[in-house]
Each structure stands twice: as C-alpha cells, then as structure tokens.
C-alpha cells in the first residue's frame, strides 16, 4: 500500500491505496463519490471523465497514484454546496440532455472542459469534442443543445 494525497472537489484527502487502484475505483469505493460512472471499462465511453489539474481525464485509464498531489474535480464538485446545480448541469436539465442518465456525469465534465477552452463552440465543435463520450440512449441531439445553451448562459 502507498499513501497518496490529493484535493477532491476542493477538499484535501489522504488515503492508502494499492498501486494498481484506478482513480475511478478510489473515487467511488474509497471516497464514496459514486457520481463518476464506469461504463465501458475499455477507455472509450467517457462516463468516468473527471478533471485532473484542470483538464479532462478518464478516471478509469489513470491510476490513483498518478493523481497523487493533483486537484481532482468530479461531478459532485459541479454543483454548489447547497445543491444548486452548476450552469452546465442546469442546461442539461432544462434541455433534457439526458435519458437514462448513465453517461451524464461524463458528458457534463466534458462539456465543462470544452467551454473552458472554447466559450462559444459551434454545434460541429461540440460534437467533435464529445467524440469520446458515448450515450447508449443516443440522446446526442439534446446534449448538444444543452451545451450550446450552457455556453449562452455563461455569456
């Protein structure tokens, strides 16, 4: 076992993990942050996407020890402490950007990453950026609408 420390959703965390523990396993099973989902387990679906030091990463394709010292933000960190949804989350709710909801945490994290680097993306740019997020309900149309709406809401 090795000791790791990181900041998760603004809170400092120190824990012991096996080196082979994936970041997503650490988040879900040791920290109880089950909003981050495991979809494909083969690095293709993006349901496990989180932000590590400000950039999008697949938490199923990263070891927890690799995030030692990092700042990690998960879907639980996107809403205000009182539960008020973040802008991207609110846009997904308003525009029905989800059906079963399984892919939604990863979609929201990807959308937030996109809007950080490109605050006014075209539909084509949104679809290109979300290439690594699969929705098994094929609800892409409203997801793209939600991301556009979030961009407009952020002004």
């Amino acid at each position, binding site marked *: 076992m090795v000791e790791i420390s990181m900041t998760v959703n603004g809170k400092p965390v120190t824990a012991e993990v096996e*080196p082979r523990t*994936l970041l997503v396993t650490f988040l879900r099973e040791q920290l109880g942050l089950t909003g981050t989902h495991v979809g494909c387990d*083969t690095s293709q679906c993006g349901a496990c996407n989180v932000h590590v030091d400000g950039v*999008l*990463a697949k938490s199923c394709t*990263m070891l927890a020890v*690799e995030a030692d010292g990092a700042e990690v933000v998960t879907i639980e960190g996107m809403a205000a402490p009182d539960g008020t949804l973040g802008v991207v989350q609110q846009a997904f709710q308003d525009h029905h950007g989800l059906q079963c909801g399984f892919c939604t945490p990863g979609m929201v994290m990807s959308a937030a990453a996109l809007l950080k680097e490109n605050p006014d993306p075209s539909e084509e740019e949104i679809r290109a950026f979300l*290439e*690594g997020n699969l929705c098994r309900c094929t609800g892409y149309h409203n997801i793209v609408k939600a991301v556009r709406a979030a961009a407009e809401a952020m002004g």
Partner: protein
Amino acid sequence: MYAFEFVKPKTVEEAVAALRESEAKALAGGQTLIPTLKQRLAAPEKLVSLAGIEALKGIRMGDGVVEIGAGTTHATVARELAGSVPALAALAGDIGDPAVRNRGTIGGSLANNDPSADWPAAVLGTGATVVTDRREIAADDFFQGLFTTALEEDEIITAVRFPIPEAAAYAKFDQPASRFALVGVFVARLGGDVRVAVTGASENGVFRWQEAEAALEADFSPAAVEALAPPPAEEMISDLHGAGDYRAHLVKVMTKRAVAACG
C-alpha cells in the same frame, strides 16, 4: 489488474536504473498501457512512471527543426504547434478524444508502436530522429514491425526531433469506434524529397510507400498518385474493420487527399 510496485523517479537516469532492477515497464501517459494491464495482457512487477521527469516535457523550436519532449501530451502539441507546424498539430489534435489527448504522450505512442497509431506516420513521414537516453535513432531504423522498435528494454525516449517540412499533411480515415487510423497517410516535402508514410494498413506496421514518393518527386499532385497501382493487398491488414484490398485502396485515396491538403 495484477499487483505491481509503483515508482516515480525525477530524472531519466533514475528511471533507467529502475527499469533495470526488475521486470519493469515504463508508464508514460498510460492511455494504452493501463487498458492493457486491466485486460491482464501484461503483468509487470514494477511500473516506472515517467510523469515526474520535467526534462521530458516541452517543445523547443530550432533552426528548421522542432524538438518535442517525449513526455509532451498530444493536447500540448496540438495547441502549441498549430501556428508553426500545422501538420503535426493537426495529427496530434485528432488522436483519440480530448481526454486521451490530455494524458497520452508522443514518447509513449512511439515506444508502443501500435500498427494503427498516428505518431509513427509523422515520424517516418518526415524522417524525424528519435532521441533516447543513450543515442539518436533515425526513423527509418526505429520502427521494426508490429509493436516492435529499435529500443532496448531499459531504453527511454527523451525527445523526437522533426525537420520542419516545406509542406506536409496527414490524412486519416478513422476507425470510428477506437478512433485509431483504419488507414492514415502522412505526406511531406523536404527540399527535393517527398516522403509518404502509411499507418494502420500494413501487417508490418508503419511503412514508406516508395512508389508514391518517386511519383510525387516527379510531379507533386494527386494525379501522380492516381496513376499508381495501390500497394499489394496481401501485405495489408485484413480484419473485421476492412479487408486487405479495401485498406490498399484507402492508402491510395488518403495519399491523394494528403497531397491535395499540402496545397
């Protein structure tokens, strides 16, 4: 995943020493190695993370060359070279998806030498030099078949030095599920020379299509490629994503598109 020990050295020398100590593997961005470990297709005793070695990171522009540190992510290359070497930036910006590009590195991709990876096409297609902890390896000597390179077991790529071509472009036909290249062709003009490197197609990994190079040196136009026979279908990968003759056809089509994109 099988259990392993994890170390994160600060220097290349410490990393090389750690690789020699036991049945160890170097971990770069992990975008191929971690999925491989999850499938239990590899069982190293130790992972040597290269992420803590600052000397491996960053891009340096020189006189007619650009040197990319082996630990530089695809996302960084796509962002920083967009203005200066657009062919390399575009290739890097179309690898995998945004999350993969934020962690995957050029050095990791080259050391793995997946037959459908994008970077080998750019390295072979420009005649770049692979710099390691102990020597410099010409692209023509580096790639030695599927998942096989000239690297020793304990050798670490530190940088890749690309000559900046007068014109270059990469044309990729995506395999949409994996986002690897079903066929990708990198074409570059350097002085009077033309290089054409093909990834995704051959059973022997990335290769130079020399007939196209000769034809393009005489006449740098898509029409010159159109006049050629495609490479031999029996040497192409044939799988559920595409038969050998289909891939051979795509080599020709993507070469024409890359030449057209060179302008």
